């Protein structure tokens, strides 16, 4: 019997080691709750944003090289987007005069007519794309709205805001990043 127990032990041992390593491997991975913190675009050239704007114009992010661009994904039905809108207006108004930064908004999973009405009601004179923005949203790795990306004058994505932002937070981020971007 003792011999049988010893034999069983030598079978169980390697299986237990293999299973233990497997559990260790799975347990040491990033937890699912931290997935949203993954920011793959950091330091990458900003994915192309090009298309018609709701005022009948045309926007191409490559034409904005040389100044900061805040790429803002939003939805007219999202409360935090409504709350942050006046902050974007304030930021845009302040930087339009300086010419050093601009905002571009992309409606996410929304209707163009709702977007037009939203800007009529709430102000904002920056370019807004409302059609076929899904592919661009995926290219940026958007996970929800509001979500905003800071594109440096060099055309590289250097920051991201998940959730609502403020004009002061944007200014602080740009001030911090100014030394880093060339």
């Amino acid at each position, binding site marked *: 019997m003792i011999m049988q127990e010893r*034999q069983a032990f030598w079978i169980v041992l*390697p*299986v237990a080691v*293999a299973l233990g*390593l*497997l559990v260790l*491997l*799975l347990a040491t991975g990033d937890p699912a709750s931290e997935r949203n913190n993954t920011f793959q675009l950091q330091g990458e050239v900003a994915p192309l944003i090009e298309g018609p704007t709701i005022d009948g114009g045309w926007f191409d992010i490559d034409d904005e090289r040389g100044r900061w661009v805040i790429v803002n994904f939003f939805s007219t039905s999202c409360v935090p987007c409504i709350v942050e809108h006046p902050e974007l207006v304030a930021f845009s108004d302040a930087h339009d005069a300086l010419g050093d930064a601009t905002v571009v908004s992309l409606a996410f999973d929304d209707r163009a007519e709702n977007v037009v009405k939203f800007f009529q009601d709430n102000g904002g004179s920056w370019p807004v794309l409302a059609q076929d923005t*899904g592919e661009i*949203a995926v290219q940026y790795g958007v996970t929800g709205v509001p979500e905003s990306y800071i594109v440096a004058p060099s055309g590289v994505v250097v920051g991201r805001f998940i959730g609502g932002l403020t004009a002061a937070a944007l200014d602080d981020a740009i001030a911090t990043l100014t030394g880093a971007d060339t």
Partner: protein
Amino acid sequence: MTRRTASWLLVMVVALSALVVAAVDEGEPKTNADRAYSLAKDFACPVCQGQSIAESDVPIARTIRRNLRIWVDEGQSESFIRDELVSIYGEDIDYSPSTDGISALVWVLPIVGGVVAAAGLTIVFRRWKAEAISEASAADEALVAAARRERHDD
């Protein structure tokens, strides 16, 4: 080959056949929509817990599903689509663990454990069986005889 061995072999053949058929016989997606849906099942919704892009109805999952359809319609390969989504949302989005680096152990360890366990059990069962049919010792026979006598006396 005994009848019992043949029965076990038959059970193993049936079980293995069922596994192979289940793994292989899903059939190739027939349309682009089928292929896009099949791909959507392979990726995790980036903002959900335990739901695939195919299952989730949050806006980003719907958007990624639409993108999958566009990529499939464009004729992009599965590896292109996989690489694209992993480069954007990170490896966590891919339900199939990577076969490179330390992640490959996720594939290797269960196989190693299974093979070691099967081999070990086979060896031990054979050894135990050989021990079981060994002849009774004189002490065993004396014990059995005593038990019989006692029963007979009762």
